[in-house]
């Protein structure tokens, strides 16, 4: 399998539970990178802490496994000092939008060129099943034994409002769309957000009686619809997937190059 050229095989089988969607995200990500034909030395994967963020250990790129919530800040430092590198920042839903929320909205606001992948399994898996900002009202978790009264973010709307110039959502069921979107996101010059609905059968699935991993993927099939589809109008509860935002905007590192030019000219 060609994509095996992009992994650190000695660490497989990986630690994710049987049926965990994160393995599928890894699968699709590798296929996107393979299609882009990028050199492994040009890619830096910066991840935070949590099940999702162990992904950096499994891929044969420059990999930086940082601290919970702060991957985007570390990635900003890498990108600004070496703009020619391709930054991919996979995070969990809590990692990106709970503790990491501040860095998420500011990275989007700056429109710095990197791809933020929010691997949304609506739970904190590594620590055993607590609810996250994306669990949603009425869900059960080890810290919401009487049901969750928190409303969830809409990651796409949040990213749009914060200024991200590429925003998309897909699921672990729609693997071909996911690979295509990841390719677009990595190619896009600006802050790209890709939310991936990714099943956690072990905690979210069990706690909320969602059945097997395959059942949870069937849920993604039946409860999502392409962006702007007629079905969405008829049934607003459907979750839209696809590309929501794709626009050319001034990219942060390119703008800073102009600052350097001005500063150096001014001085001479």
């Amino acid at each position, binding site marked *: 399998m060609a994509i095996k050229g992009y992994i650190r095989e000695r660490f*497989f089988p990986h630690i994710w539970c049987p049926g965990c969607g994160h*393995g*599928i995200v890894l699968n699709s990500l590798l296929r996107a990178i393979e299609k882009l034909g990028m050199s492994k030395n040009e890619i830096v994967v910066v991840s935070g802490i949590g099940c999702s963020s162990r992904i950096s250990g499994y891929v044969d790129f420059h990999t930086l496994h940082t601290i919970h919530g702060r991957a985007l800040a570390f990635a900003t430092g890498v990108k600004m000092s070496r703009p020619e590198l391709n930054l991919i920042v996979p995070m969990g839903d809590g990692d990106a939008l709970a503790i990491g929320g501040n860095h998420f909205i500011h990275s989007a606001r700056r429109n710095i060129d990197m791809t933020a992948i929010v691997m949304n399994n609506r739970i904190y898996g590594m620590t055993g099943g607590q609810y996250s900002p994306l669990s949603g009202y009425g869900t059960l978790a080890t810290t919401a034994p009487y049901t969750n009264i928190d409303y969830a973010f809409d990651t796409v709307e949040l990213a749009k409002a914060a200024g991200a110039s590429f925003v998309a959502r897909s699921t672990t069921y729609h693997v071909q769309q996911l690979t295509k979107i990841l390719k677009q996101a990595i190619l896009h010059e600006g802050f790209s957000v890709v939310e991936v609905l990714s099943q956690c059968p072990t905690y979210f699935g069990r706690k909320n009686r969602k059945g097997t991993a*395959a059942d949870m993927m069937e849920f993604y099939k039946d409860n999502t619809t392409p962006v702007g589809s007629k079905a969405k109008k008829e049934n607003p509860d459907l979750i839209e997937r696809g590309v929501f935002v794709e626009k050319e905007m001034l990219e942060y590192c390119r703008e800073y190059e102009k600052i350097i030019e001005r500063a150096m000219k001014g001085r001479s």
Partner: protein
Amino acid sequence: MAKPKLKAHVIDREWCKGCGICVHFCPKDVLELDEEDKVIAARREDCICCKMCELRCPDLAIEIETE
């Protein structure tokens, strides 16, 4: 476009965790979990090489080789 011809189901029993996703989504019901909960190509001849199993496997444990 000529129908791809199956050469082999390359399965890594070490990496397969028996999650059943490939078995569930195979459109031709080719795959099964054996007694060790590892995927096998039980009805290999029905395989149409759509590769849905390969694309959806969380463990990179199955690959469809075609001619």
